[in-house]
C-alpha cells in the first residue's frame, strides 16, 4: 500500500512501488487529465507539480513521491498562478489539439509561481522541454505574459 497526497487529498493505492506516478494517476485514480506522451521525460505532456516543482510523472516511481504534495491539471486551478494561466489560455485560445496542453499549463503555472514576470529567456528555459506538435508556442508565450500582467 502506497499513500500519496494528490490535489490536497490523501490517496491510498495498492500498486508496485516502481510504477510511474503517471500510471497511478491515470489508471488507478482515474485522473486522466495528465497525458502520456513519450514515456521518457522528453515531451512534457505528463508534467505535474511535486511540491510546486514541475516534474515528469512518467519517469517518477510512485514510491519516490513520499509525503510531497502532488498537484495535477485537475487541481492546479486552485492556485493563483494556475488560475491565471488557465484564464489566459482561454482568453487567447492557446490550445489547438490540446494533447500537450495539460503539461504546458502545469509548466507555465510553476514558472509563474516562482517568477512573477518572466521574460522570453525565462520562458524558453522553463518551457522548452514541453513540446507542442501543433506549434502553439507563440500563443503559449503570450499566454504566460498575459497571466503575469494580471497577477
Amino acid at each position, binding site marked *: 500500500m502506497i499513500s500519496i497526497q494528490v490535489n490536497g487529498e490523501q490517496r491510498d493505492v495498492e500498486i508496485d512501488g516502481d510504477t510511474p506516478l503517471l500510471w497511478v494517476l491515470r489508471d488507478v485514480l482515474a485522473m486522466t487529465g495528465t497525458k502520456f506522451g513519450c514515456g*521518457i521525460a*522528453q515531451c512534457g505532456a505528463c508534467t505535474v507539480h511535486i511540491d510546486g516543482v514541475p516534474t*515528469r510523472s512518467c*519517469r517518477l516511481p510512485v514510491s*519516490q513521491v513520499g509525503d510531497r504534495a502532488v498537484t495535477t491539471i485537475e487541481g492546479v486551478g486552485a492556485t493563483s498562478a494556475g488560475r491565471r494561466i488557465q484564464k489566459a489560455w482561454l482568453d487567447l485560445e492557446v490550445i489547438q489539439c490540446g494533447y500537450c496542453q495539460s503539461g504546458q499549463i502545469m509548466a507555465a503555472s510553476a514558472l509563474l509561481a516562482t517568477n512573477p514576470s518572466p521574460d522570453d529567456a525565462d520562458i524558453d528555459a522553463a518551457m522548452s*522541454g514541453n513540446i507542442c506538435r501543433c506549434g502553439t508556442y507563440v500563443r503559449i508565450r503570450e499566454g504566460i505574459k498575459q497571466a503575469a500582467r494580471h497577477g
Partner: protein
Amino acid sequence: MIARRRNWLILGAAVLLFVAVATWRLALLPGPLAFAGGTQVDLTDYRGPSPAGVPAELANADPIAKGQYLTQAADCAACHTAKGGKPFAGGRPFKLPFGTIYTPNITPDRETGIGAWTDAEFLRAVHKGIGRGGERLYPAFPYASYTLLTDDDVLAIRRYLSTISPVRQANKPLGFSFPFNQRWLMTFWSAFFNPGHRFRPVQERSAQWNRGAYLVEAAEHCGECHTPRTIMQAMNTRQKFAGGQAEGWNAYNISSDRLSGIGAWSAQDLAQYLAKGHAPGHGVASGPMGEAVELSTSKLTPSDIAAMVTYLQSVPAVHTKASPRMAGPAPTLASAGPTNNPVGKRIFEGACASCHAWNGRGAITAEQQLTGNRAVNDATAANVAMMILNGIGSPEHQGAFMPSFRASYSDAEIAAAANYVTARFGAKPSRVTAEDVRKMRAQ
C-alpha cells in the same frame, strides 16, 4: 684530452644507467598485491577460509550454479557477447590503436566454440593466454588477471559454460596491422607482464580482505580498465587503480585518494554502486561499467560486495590531475550558467533540464544528479559525450534510464551540449569538438 674522455665516459654511463632504469621500470612492475606488504603465501599454506571459490551463501549450491556465479564474477559475458548477439557467442569488437580485435565464441559448439577443448587447454588459455592451437592470445583477454584464478574456479566456469546452448558462429579474424598481428610477440609480453601464478593471499590481512582481493584482482579484473597502462600495455601497478580507458570511456581513478579517487565514498556508497549501479550523489554506472554492474557485480552476494569494498578501500591513494576537486552546487537560475555556448544551452533546456534540472540535482529521481559526478567534473567530457550518444537502460526496465541522443543531434550539437554540461556543473569546462564526437560515434 683526458678530461674530455672522462666526460664522455660519465655521459655514457649516465645514458646506460638511464636505459637500465627505464627498462627495469617498464619490465618489472610490482605484483597486484605488492602494495599491501605482509607475507604472500600459496593458497594451500594460507591459514583461514579460502578466499577463492564461491561465498558461504552458495556453499551448498550445485556445481553448475557455483560455476555460473564464478562466470558472472569474472564477467565473461560482457566481452564474449556482441551487441544484439547471443550470450557468450563472441564477435564483440574492441577497437584498439593497433586495429580491431573480436572476442571469440565460448559457447560449447564443437566447431566454432570451445566444445571440443580439453580442460587443460581451457586452463592454459585462461591462465597463460595460449590458444588451443598453441597460438598466443592478446592481453585484451585479461589473462594477466585471470591467471590468479584457481584451477578449481576456472574449471567451474568451464563446467558452467558447457551447459549453455551451443551457438554456431565462426570467430572473426584479427584486424591488427603489422607488426601487431604477430601473435608470437605476446610470448615476450607474457613473460614480463603476466604474473603467471595463482592468487597468493596475504597472511596478515583478514579473510574478508583476501576474499575482496581475489574478487577484485582475479575475477572482476577491475585493474584492466582502472589501472593506467605503460607504453608496453601492461597495467602500471605503480599507479594502481589511478584510472584508464575503456572503449572511448574514461575508467576513473578508484584508488583511495579523496579528491581523485573513491576515498571520500562511504563503504555503503561503494556497496550500493557495485550492487545497483548508482549511489546517491555519485552518478550512475554507465558505458562499460554499467555493463560490469549489470552482468557481474549486481549478481554478487552481499558478503562478496562487502569484501570487494574492504579491499578497494585499502588500495593506496594516487592523486591524478585529470580528476580534480569537484565543483560545488550549480545555480538554480537558467540564466546564471555559462553564456558563451548558446547551442549547448538550447539543447540543455529542451532535452536535458526536464530530468537533470537547471541546478543539476536531478528533477525526477536521484540518479539524474549531475553535480558531484566524476564524469561531469572530467574536463575531457568523454563520458558525458558518450552518455549523450548512447544513453543507458531502457524505459520499460527499472533502474536508471536515459535515452540515446545519437540520432537526434549532430556531432557539433552533442559537443556543445557536453561542453555546456561540464561548464555549468563541473570543475572545468570541456572543449569537445564535433570531430571528437564523430570518433566517439564510431566506438
